[in-house]
Structure formats: structure tokens, C-alpha cells
């Protein structure tokens, strides 16, 4: 068998690259570690940036296009940094029936963000989720990891106003 | 000598297209006489009449539906036509006129009326017809009975199709033409 090309150096001397490297090494730096590596990169740095993707591709000896293809296939992965606050509206069936789309419309009206966008001031990223599996609480909104149950547009607005400008928890 | 009463009424219409299909129609050359013996060309860019007749047996439409004027026209024509034929790729599939669709109307107009001119001209408002949001093939707007793809369909294709239609048959065009032919 041909020797493998050497492992690349991390993109910078940021210590956090060790976390990403470990997640890959745990699975033998094999190409099948790709999804785990992407999870780790996003968890560590908040989103998937280009140097990170190149680093993963180099370490796993995976083609760049394959890495990018996988990173853009899954909803969970983001290629852009998110805003200071994340507002996730559940659009599962239970929440849809109970008016999740109205919530989205009202947030868009008020803050000018559509799902998967970040407000111009970088404060709020609006996301949707397929289902949190908490349908008993529908409609559900998750704001910076705080679950807001059975919410109305007014509730969401009040909460958003509260966190805007605040440092997230 | 009077015309035989059974002569079919034929019309051709030119919407948003390059007139290539009409040129191809004219390329039928001497066969035009044969068509003329069986049909009367009652309305066409090639003849003088300005209003669409009350009822036409066969109307060949060239061009996509791109403007409000096209839309008004084709709806009227459909109501007054027995067999409506989409002639050529623009009518059948949208073709070149639809290449503007991905950009949206405003950027397209801006390119034509602001960027590439020495003196800015006013935007079309009616005398020059207002563009629709998207150019569309004819059947996206009104029901169409026969499709003759091709850019343009050859004179042979048109001749065959018109002859079949005049004989009351639906032309089988698969071997004669295709998109882009």
C-alpha cells in the first residue's frame, strides 16, 4: 500500500483546533469520520469556515468537494457565522397547526429576517427546526437555548426585545 | 370566380419571437400556393388586416407571451380560434425570450434603458407594451392544441403540419422536428 500523505497543520495556533483534531483521530482519521468532524468543527467554532473544511479534508484524506457536499447536505451545518442570538422556530406539524408560520411572518416583519438569515445588525439569527419533539408545547420557539412554550407573536417579540443588545447566556 | 366555401380560415400571429418562424413559413415557397388553394390567410403580420376575425380555423402562433399586450392578444385569439398551434420553440417552450426570466424584469429593463444608452429613455408604459414578470410559453397561458417545436421548424415541417391540419388530422411530428431543430 502507498504511504498516506502527511497530516496537515491546523489552520492557526488556536488551541481549539485540538478538539477538532481529536474528534477525527478518535475515528482513526478515516473518511467516515467526516460528519463527526463537521459536528466538532461547528460546535467548536460556531460555523464551518473554509480553512476548517480544508483542514478536515486534509486530515481525513477526503476530497474537498466531498467535504463541501456533505457540509451543505445537512440542515444542521452552517457555513456562515450566526448572530449573537439564535431564534429557532419549530415548524413541525404540531407547531404548524398551531400557527408557527404566523410567528415566522411576524418576526420577519419586525426584524427583517427570513429563516436561515441573520438580522442586518448581527443580533438575531432566525432558524427553523423540523420538530423538537415537544409537540405538547406547540408552538415552540427556542431562543438562545431557552424553550418558549405555547408562544404568541407578542411573547416572541417581548423576548427578542429583552435579549437584543444583551450578551447571550 | 368565387372561392370555394369550404376553404379553411388560417391565421398566423407573431408574439415575442424573432420572426424566424414566419420566415420559415415563407420558405415553403411554391408550396404556399398549394396551402393557399386550401386555406385563406385571414390574419397575419404578412397581411394587412388589423383585427382578428370572429372565428379562425387554424392559428399558428410564433413567439412567447412576454408582455401584457401578448397576453391580451393570445387570450382573445384563443377564444376565436378552433385549432391553436404553437409554432416554434418560443411559443412551445419559451426559448430565448425566457432567458430574461431568472433575472427579473427590473434588472433587464435597467440594462436596456439605463446602462447601455447614451440618454436614458422612459420605461415602457403602454404604447410600448409593459413586460410581464416572466415570459412564458403559450400553453402556460391558454390551452394549445398542437405543438411544432424547432428554432425555427423547417419549411417542410410547417408544410406537413399545416397540410395535415387542413386535412383534419393531427400531425405526427416526432421524426421531423425537435426542440432546437
Amino acid at each position, binding site marked *: 500500500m502507498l504511504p498516506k500523505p502527511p497530516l496537515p497543520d491546523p489552520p492557526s495556533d488556536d488551541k481549539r483546533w485540538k478538539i477538532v483534531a481529536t474528534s477525527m483521530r478518535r475515528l482513526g482519521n478515516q473518511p*467516515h469520520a467526516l460528519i463527526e468532524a463537521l459536528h466538532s468543527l461547528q460546535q467548536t467554532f460556531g460555523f464551518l469556515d473554509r480553512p476548517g473544511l480544508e483542514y478536515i479534508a486534509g486530515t481525513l484524506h477526503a476530497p474537498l468537494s466531498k467535504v463541501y457536499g456533505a457540509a451543505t447536505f445537512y440542515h444542521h451545518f452552517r457555513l456562515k457565522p450566526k448572530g449573537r442570538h439564535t431564534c429557532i422556530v419549530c415548524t413541525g406539524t404540531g407547531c404548524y397547526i398551531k400557527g408557527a408560520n404566523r410567528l415566522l411572518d411576524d418576526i420577519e416583519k419586525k426584524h427583517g429576517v427570513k429563516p436561515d438569515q441573520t438580522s442586518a445588525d448581527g443580533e438575531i439569527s432566525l432558524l427553523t*427546526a423540523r420538530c*423538537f419533539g415537544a409537540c405538547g408545547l406547540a408552538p415552540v420557539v427556542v431562543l438562545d437555548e431557552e424553550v418558549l412554550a405555547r408562544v404568541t407573536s407578542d411573547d416572541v417579540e417581548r423576548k427578542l426585545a429583552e435579549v437584543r443588545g444583551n450578551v447571550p447566556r | 370566380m368565387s372561392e370555394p366555401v369550404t376553404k379553411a380560415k388560417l391565421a398566423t400571429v407573431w408574439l415575442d419571437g424573432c420572426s424566424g418562424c414566419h420566415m420559415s413559413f415563407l420558405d415553403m415557397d411554391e408550396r404556399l400556393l398549394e396551402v393557399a388553394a386550401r386555406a385563406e390567410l385571414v390574419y397575419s403580420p404578412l397581411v394587412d388586416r388589423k383585427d382578428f376575425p370572429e372565428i379562425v380555423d387554424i392559428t399558428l402562433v410564433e413567439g412567447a407571451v412576454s408582455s401584457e399586450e401578448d397576453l391580451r392578444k393570445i387570450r382573445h385569439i384563443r377564444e376565436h380560434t378552433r385549432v391553436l398551434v404553437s409554432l416554434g420553440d418560443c411559443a412551445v417552450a419559451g426559448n430565448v425570450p425566457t432567458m430574461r426570466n431568472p433575472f427579473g424584469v427590473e434588472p433587464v429593463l435597467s440594462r436596456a434603458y439605463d446602462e447601455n444608452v447614451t440618454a436614458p429613455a422612459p420605461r415602457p408604459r403602454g404604447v410600448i407594451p409593459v413586460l410581464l414578470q416572466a415570459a412564458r410559453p403559450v400553453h402556460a397561458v391558454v390551452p394549445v392544441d398542437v405543438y411544432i417545436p424547432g428554432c425555427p421548424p423547417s419549411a417542410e415541417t410547417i408544410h406537413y403540419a399545416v397540410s395535415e391540419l387542413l386535412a383534419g388530422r393531427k400531425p405526427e411530428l416526432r421524426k421531423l422536428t425537435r426542440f432546437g431543430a
Partner: protein
Amino acid sequence: MSPDEIRGMAEREREHQAGRSCVLQVCTAAGCQPMQSVEIKTALEAEAKARGIGEHQCQVKSVGCLGLCGSGPLVRREPDGAMYQRVTPGDAPAILDSLGSAPPTHLFLDTRQPFFARQTRIVTANSGRIDPERLEDYLAAGGYATLARVLTEMSPQEVIGEITRSGLRGRGGGGYPTGLKWSTVAKSPGTPKTIICNADEGDPGAFMDRSVLESDPHRMIEGMLIAAYAVGASEGYIYIRAEYPLAIARLKTALRHAERHGLLGNNICGTRFNLRIELRLGAGAFVCGEETALIASIEGNRGTPRPRPPYPAERGLFGHPTLINNVETYANVPSILERGGEWFAGIGTERSKGTKVFALTGSIANTGLIEVPMGITLRDIVFEIGGGVPEGARFKAVQTGGPSGGCIPEQYLNTPVDYESLMSLGSIMGSGGMIIMDDSSSMIDVARYFMEFCMTESCGKCIPCRMGTVEMHELLGRFLNGSAAKADLDLLEDLCEMVKSTSLCGLGQSAPNPVLTTLRYFRPEYDAALAAGGR
């Protein structure tokens, strides 16, 4: 742990528990946790401490799902089983005041109501009873005893025989006979064999698997262990959605405990049976519920399906014979092996055996999680157990099977819930989402909602699904905005048929179902939309 050690540990834990005169079980699953149930538990503990009530007298315990999520946060009391609803941390003193008597009226939840009384609990037997983060609790409830017996007393063939006899069918939606699947993998040449648990519960409006994993993770692990033994697998994977942080955390804890006690790894229960289980996080792709797509994802690829055959049973993960079942399927296994296939086959109908867990949501009085015997009627679920639609609204349809299922109207509510009956109505059993709609819902809108889901979840590999869903979505939109013509209705019907017949995988093949069932049962809505459009 050897079988004796398992018995011993269970015995000790049971004795320990028997000494307590009262246990307050606080649901800390994802349904109640956002409503401050962790704070409630803390408040109860503090209140008990302040009153000098020791843990041996009254233990406050974190448990999994108690079922009636819509009335949460819920607290249950042992030994009498009384329940408290819509509890707040401030209610702690009132709850402790009421220990010897009935709960105060504003907290009282009647456990004799059909919601609780009409359930048959196998998969959820321990849910809301045991602490999902303690192995000892599971052992005390009889956990892993079956595994020990299976490993020491039964051959793999006997295990498969028992599963076959039970009539268990896949609970992920397809309903493929589990015994048959197991025996195919067992017979497949090639090693190492692999076993996968599909916990990528993707149906919107369905949370059965999340609940099982948050409430009783060891049950699923034990089921996987038994399955691995039966088919001869030594590598295991659990593919779970990243959107379920609590379930992931509890599963990780359970796996760690199982490993530490020798229930995972090498020489399990002192036998020659080995199994490692790795957790892999899904990343938000509904199509990964499809077996070959799930395998592609674990292999580090885009989660696109591939044509079958070869089936994963012959050539699956990394080319090895692979068994894939979902959480609920595995969770049934320990009980079947404990009580016998015959016992399980005695529950349910001729061709659908056992129970099914459903997540009841939408316009219904009792929102939550239920487990019912197969063969129960939809009417009993909706109107008895579910308590019907809330006052002021009228029942219109029940949706089963999520984006792959259909909307069932009132006149079919007497249909028994089993795989074949639901399919004959144009829907499917699915993984267990059951959404109730009232007369305020437009069925065309509902159809379009599911179509939008399929459209954005389509992997894009085959054109019928990639574009068919887009075109159907567009046409449904025309019905909603009044621009639809008769030709659009014809085209929509053609599309449904074509996409169903030609798509590469189950996602596309079933995507038209919500449209087809609404066309079948709610046609007047489409006709009215045509009439309104004036075309």
C-alpha cells in the same frame, strides 16, 4: 456483570426502594423540562429537606415521560400513583402537604381517565417510573435479566425464532417483519456484522423515540444487545438526531454505565459475546431515515439513498451485513424475550402484533404520548384516549405517518389501527405521529405543508422526487391562491402517481400520500378552490 451479579444488584436496589414510603416522580423529559421541571424537582427536594423529611421517607426522583405532555409539568406519586398536573416550583409546599391525601384540586390529575386506563404499556412500561440515568433503577425493574438469560440459555436461532413467533414488525414505518429481517442478516455471509439503531426520528410531529430514549434508554440498549447476539453482530451504531440533546445525553450516560458494568464491550455477561456501540449524530436530514441513506451518512457521505438490492442485510455499513431497526422496535425486544413470542402475539390483530406508541398532537384535548394495543380504533384513540378536539371545534381529520402518510376523515374513524388497514386508507402506520385537525384546517394547506417538507428534505438524487415535489408544491399553491385550473388538477393527479411509482427511495415514493388522501377524502375542497378561481 455475570447473570448472578445482575440479579444481586437488582435485588439490592429493590430492597433499597422498598424501604421508602413515598416517591415523588418528576418528569424531566423534553416535554416537561422546558416548563421548569428541573426547578420543580429542586424545589421539592428543598421543601422536603426544610421539613426534615429524609430520602428514606420521601424520595424526589427524576423520571422520564409520564405521557400527558399537554398537562405538564407532571409529577407522579408512589406508591398510590396519584398525579399532579401543571406544577410550578411554587407548588412544592402544597404537594408535600398533600402526601397523605389527595392532591389539591388545582393540581389534581385524574389517573382513572381513559388516557391512562386504556393504554397497554410494553415499550413505555418503565417510562415515568425509573430514573433514566441510573442503571440500578433499570435493573430493579428487571432490566438486563432477559439479556443474561438469552446469552446463557438460548441459541441465536432460538432468539430469532421467538421474535418471528411474536409477529413483531418494524416500528419505523415500513412494518417489515422483524424476525425475517434478523434471520436474513444472520444468514448473510461476511464479518464483522453490524447492527444499527435508527434514532433519527424525522417525522415532524412525532417524538416517540425521543421519549423512549429520554425515559428508558437501557431498554433500547438491551434490545440491541439481544438483536446483535441473534444476528451475530459485533459492531453497533446508534444514529440519533442532533436536535435531541437530552436524549443524547441520557443515551451517552446509559452507554457509559453499561460499558462500566460489562454489559457492553467484550465477554458480555461472562460469555463470548462482544458488542461495541458507538453513537453517531445525525445532522438534520429526514431522508437519513431511509436505510441506505443512513448508512451513507454514517460512512461520512451525503445522506443519499442508493438502489436496493443489495439490501443492507447483505451489504450494508462498510459493505458488511447490517441490521437496521428503529428505537421502538428494539425496545420491544426485551419484553418479547422475557415473556415469550406467544404472549406478544396475543396482543393486537391477526397481522399486526403488540402495541404501538403514538404521539398525539394538534387539535386534541390530551396532547402527549400513548401506547396502545394494535387493533384499537382511531376513534378510541382520538375521542376516548385523546379526549376529542377541544371545545368549539369540530374534528376533521387525523393524520398518521407524517409526510409519508395521509389524512383520514371522520367516516373512517372506526378503522382498527394496524399496518394493513391504515394502508388501505391510503395512509401508513408510520413511526407514530398522529396529528388531529379540526375544521379550521384547510386540507389543501395541510397537503402543501407536507409537500414543502418533502421538497426541502428531498436529497435531490432522483428527478421524480427532486422536481416532482417542487411541482406538486407549486400546483397546490395555485389551489390555495385561487389560480388553479382544471388542467392543474389533472396534472397534480398524474404527478402523484408518477412520483409514487418512479422515485428511488421511500421518501419520494410516499411523498404524494398526503395529497392523494386529501384528494380522495376532501375533494370538495379542491373543487371549491377551482370554482373560486373561476377557471
